[in-house]
Structure formats: C-alpha cells, structure tokens
C-alpha cells in the first residue's frame, strides 16, 4: 500500500506544485469577485501564474535541446 503511486504522489512531491498552482489560481478566481481595484490586480497576478508556469515549462527544455543539438554538431 505504501508503494501505491497515488499515495506516494500525495505524500511526496508529485502533487506539490499542482496543489500550489490550484490554490493560487482559485484565489485569483475569487479575488476579482470580492472587489475592484486592488482585488482586480491581485486576481490578474494570481490567474497569470498558471499561464506563466504552463508557458515557461512548455518551452524550457527546448532551449536546452537546441544547445545540446548545437553541441552535437
């Protein structure tokens, strides 16, 4: 049982980043509902977070890869 993937994922680090992102994006959804002005700015920042993480990690390795391709040639 201790070795089951979901359990290990929950206890370990697999779900750590996803959990942080989920909490921040949910907060972003609520902030703009609570108020205007500062709350809107907070909401844009918080909802921009999953977008930034998604885009950054999608492209991250491609730079490493380009480097290693150049190295190989």
């Amino acid at each position, binding site marked *: 049982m201790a070795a*089951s*993937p*979901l*359990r*290990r*994922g*929950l206890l370990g*680090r*697999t*779900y*750590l*980043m*996803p959990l942080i*992102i*989920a909490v921040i*994006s*949910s907060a972003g*959804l609520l*902030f*703009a*509902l*609570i*108020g*205007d002005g500062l*709350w*809107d700015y907070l*909401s*844009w920042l918080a*909802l*921009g977070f*999953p*977008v930034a*993480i*998604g885009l*950054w*990690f*999608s492209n*991250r*390795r*491609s730079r*490493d*890869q380009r480097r*290693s391709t150049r190295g190989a040639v």
Partner: protein
Amino acid sequence: MTNKALRQWSWVHKWTSLVCTLFLLLLCVTGLPLVFYHEIEHVLGNEVEAPEIENPGVNASLDTIVTNSKAHFPGKQLQYLSWDEEEPALVYAGLGDELDSEDGNRYLALDARTGEALGEIPFQGTVMFYVYRLHVDIFAGLAGKLFLGFMGLLFVASIVSGIVVYSPSMRKLDFGSVRHHRPRAVRWLDLHNLLGIVLAAWMIVVGGTGASIRGRIWFSVWRNDQLTEMLGAHKDNPRPETPASLETAIQTARDKVPGMIPSFVAFPGTLYSSTGHYTVFMHGDTPLTSKLLQPVVIDAATGDFTDTREMPWYVTTLLISQPLHFGDYGGMPLKILWAILDVITIVVLVTGLYLWFRRRRPNAANRFADDAEIAPRYAGAPAE
C-alpha cells in the same frame, strides 16, 4: 492505489474525455469570441450609444419608457425592462410575440433621460447570435442545453480522473518536464500532463459553472416555489387591464430595499413574474452584491408592495456561477487571461485526442520506440 484501481481511473479518464472532447472543442472555440462579446458587438456597430443631451441629470418617467417601447414594436408584448450599471443613460426593453415567449424576442435601447427609443439591438441573425447558440444549445433548445450541460459534467469527470492518473504518469519525471528530444507522442504526453495539471482548477471551475448555468430552469423552480409562496392568496390575481404606474412601482421597490438598485423588472404574465404582479429584481452596488438579486413583488393592479425575500441558494449559486464562467468580472486583463486559458485548454484537448489515437493504432515502427512511455503505466507492466 492498486493496479486495478489505476486501470479503472485510466478507463474513466479515457472514456469521459473521448465522449466530450469534440463538444468541448466546439465550446472552447465558440467561447473565445463570447469572452469579448461586448467588444465585438461594439466593433460590429450592433450596440446603441446614448447621445449627448443638454440636461443629463434628469431621468424620464418609466411610464414614458413603457409607452415608447410598445410603440416601437406594435403588436409585441413588453416583457422586461433592464438596466446596465456601465450604461446609466440607457434602459433596455425586451419584447416578444407573447408575454411568455422566448424565441424571436426583440431588444430595444431607450434613452433613460428623455425616454426616447434609440434603436433596436440586433441579436437574431447576427454572427454572435450563431456563435452564442452553438455555445449554449447547439440550436436544439432545452435538449441541447441539457446535452451540453452533461458534456460539461463529463469534462469535469475527465479532469478529476486526469489528476489521479497524473501521478503514475509522472512517476519518474520532475514537475514540468517536457521531453522535447523524444518522439512527438512522448512530447505531447508531457505537454498534456503539464498543461492539464496547471489548468486543472480553472478548467473545473469554468466547466462546472458552465454545466450548471441553466438560468431559465433555476428561475422556473424559484417561480413555482418561492414566488408562489410570497404571493400567497394573491398568486392567481388576473393580469390587470390598466396596470399601475411602473415609475411608482420601482420607487416602492427602492424604498423597501434601501441601498439596492433595480437590475430588471419583469412585467405581469412573463416567465419571471406572476400574472398579477411586477417583479422588480434589485441588486447591490458593491462588486460582490452587484451579482446577487433580490426580488421585490409589487401588485400590478394597485401598485402596492406585496413581498420581498432573498433568493434561495440555487438561484444565488447560479448568479455567482455566471461571472465565474464568463470571466467578465475583472476588467479587460481578466478577459485576456480567460482567452489565453481557453486556448491552452484547446491544446490539452487536442494533445489528449492525439494520444488516444496514437495508442489505439501504434504502427510497427514506432511500437518499440515509444509505446512503453506513452502507455498508461499499469496492467502489470514489468518494472523497468
């Protein structure tokens, strides 16, 4: 979790996704322009603007507005008047062939200060009308709405099961790993996992609220349940031949719930009121309370106050769900974020569809290269 449980979750993820993916693609593609509905209608010239006038501080009597609305569409029945906080100089009128008809309704903008009819707001037959219908009911009325709602629920189920199968799939990888040097099937699996898990919360909220927004249905429940209760002995009052002044009725509503302003008023005999009453839906003036409605019922024969109550939980839930689905509650930057998140959702759907297709028909050449990596890690696969 046992291998058997994992296999079951994989099965749930596969089938809930497969059934809803094509409809979700339709919803994402049509949802994108709907995020910018007002901006697009503005550019297309389908919005009416209030002219500059000399004495802007004074508003016309709502009774004049009622008269002018009816005069603009002779033979049509006036169903609603509504207000928009962003456009204080305008009042909108909704008219239909019958008091309780929904199809073919026409919308008119009037000048709140002079009472003059400014022009029809076109809806039927516009480009956005087709986009809207595709998004809301695929031109199939109530059946289409319920069907798309069900697809929304499957979407939520596929996200939840996707979160479960994310763990075994990421067993040997760091968060955010995308193996760009590997074949496309592996690369796209990594992208699907990354973008899917990053957007999970937003997709659950937008998918879940989209599935539950069935406005007319919840308002019908309210009308049969609480409105009937509020009217008590007056519930079967006939529709008055010459209704009491609307101006006075709205003033009475304002006095009964101080601090709130009218959002819309439903005329006697329409879907949002009873046969013998005006129902004035008031809303607050703070960001949160402006989304909530409180109905004030006014006897349309006498103009007397009948009752007011807070909306039941299901209508309140609906009213809070709407902004969370539309993304229209935090200015233009929030709309732009909504659009980006929508496009990323399309990427998650397309990569998911590709992975299913790829697993279904692995050709011999690729079999050895990628199958071990893109196959779900279960079924007693030998430990590497």
